């Protein structure tokens, strides 16, 4: 038993080191927004991956951006929503810093926006435990991880008219 543990621990460390190269992330409460809602600094040391972001964008259990927004060339996604604005050309209209601020907490940019804040963990009214209907305890896990936000931002930045 103990002999296995001794051998396994270094192996596990090596695997972790390869899979997640010590990515430093900014915690939700430490994010710095400017007066217009932009975030200048990336939330993760690992640069955003647009291909991953495109996956998060349509994935129902993570980003699910497609529930409210439409992008013309996402013919892979059925029934795109139109509650939010079309994101065609988003990469022309917004800088990366602005996109990061909107994805992390859109209400910093648009105070009346109905868009959920993807990287905010407290300050809610009757916060729940995910979709169970039961009470949750703040800080809640953010809706997206720092890396997922960077990935989605990288994807949105590729959307040019």
């Amino acid at each position, binding site marked *: 038993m103990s002999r296995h543990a001794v051998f396994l621990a270094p192996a596990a460390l090596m695997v972790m080191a390869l899979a997640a190269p010590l990515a430093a992330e900014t915690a939700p409460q430490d994010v710095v927004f400017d007066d217009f809602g932009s975030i200048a600094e990336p939330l993760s040391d690992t640069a955003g991956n647009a291909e991953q972001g495109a996956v998060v964008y349509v994935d129902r259990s993570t980003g699910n951006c497609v529930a*409210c927004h439409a992008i013309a060339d996402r013919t892979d996604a059925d029934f*795109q*929503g139109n*509650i939010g604005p079309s994101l065609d050309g988003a990469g022309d209209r917004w800088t990366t810093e602005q996109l990061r601020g909107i994805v992390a907490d859109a209400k910093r940019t648009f105070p009346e926006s*109905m868009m959920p804040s993807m990287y905010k963990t407290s300050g809610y009214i009757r*916060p*729940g*435990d*995910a979709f169970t209907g039961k*009470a949750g305890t703040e800080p809640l896990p953010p809706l997206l991880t720092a890396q997922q936000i960077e990935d989605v931002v990288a994807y949105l930045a590729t959307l040019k008219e």
Partner: protein
Amino acid sequence: MTTPFRMAAAAAMACALSLPALAETAPENTDPIVINAGELELPTAVPPPAHLDGAVPEIYSGWLFRDAATQVMQTDDFQNPGMIFVDQGITEWNTVEGAAEKSCASCHEDISVAMKGLRATTPKVNKDGVLWSVEDYVNDCRVNRMEAEALDWNGDRMKNLTAAISMQSRGMPVDVAIDGPAQPFWEQGKEMYYTRYGQLELSCSNCHEDHYGDWIRADHLSQGQTNGFPVYRLKDAGLVSQHNRFRGCVRDTRAETFAIGSDEFRALELYVASRGNGLPVEGVSVRH
């Protein structure tokens, strides 16, 4: 006939400066629901009650926002799957139960006479100053007159009974009182309607006032009118009570929801009903 997408076009212009979309979209038409080949016509669009103060230009039945296949099911009582439960509710009405050996009919006799109009005016404040839904009236009679057990608010027997009771008001305009003793309950419900609950920070109004007619993925948002409840919901293959629908909506904002039969949901039920004052009770509607 309403011009389709008139609001969307105006909003698109307003949003040209890349503000977030905020646009309700009027239904493509506002045909009435014609039931049993003309036996009854239920209007689907009427002027909004004064208290809405211009929040929406017209109030619309949720029927207008459903697809044609769903709509047609409500136009014929033999096709409407909710009518099976209405029949079961009438059987319930006539069933003797409890120590007093009474049924609903023992005191109230003919449901079509005794219950006419109740659904159109509830929730309402009872003689003791308490806000009651139809379910509360049913259970008060069961416990105090029939000396039987109260029915589960969300159980089949209660839903069958409320469906049967609702049918007796079919075609009558919703007309809940919002002033006098009802006012504090109405104010509470209004506060809830505009509160952004849960981790998604969504209020009822975000979707059902600001974005009815728009699409949230595969679902077409209605105004959230309650004149069709209890609803036969295809997704659930059964009747759905108002409070159960409220519970699901609040849960889906990633919030701690309120309980079915809670005072909060009674207040919300009153406020939402009042937003539909003027729309006809649809008896048992069909939605998906």
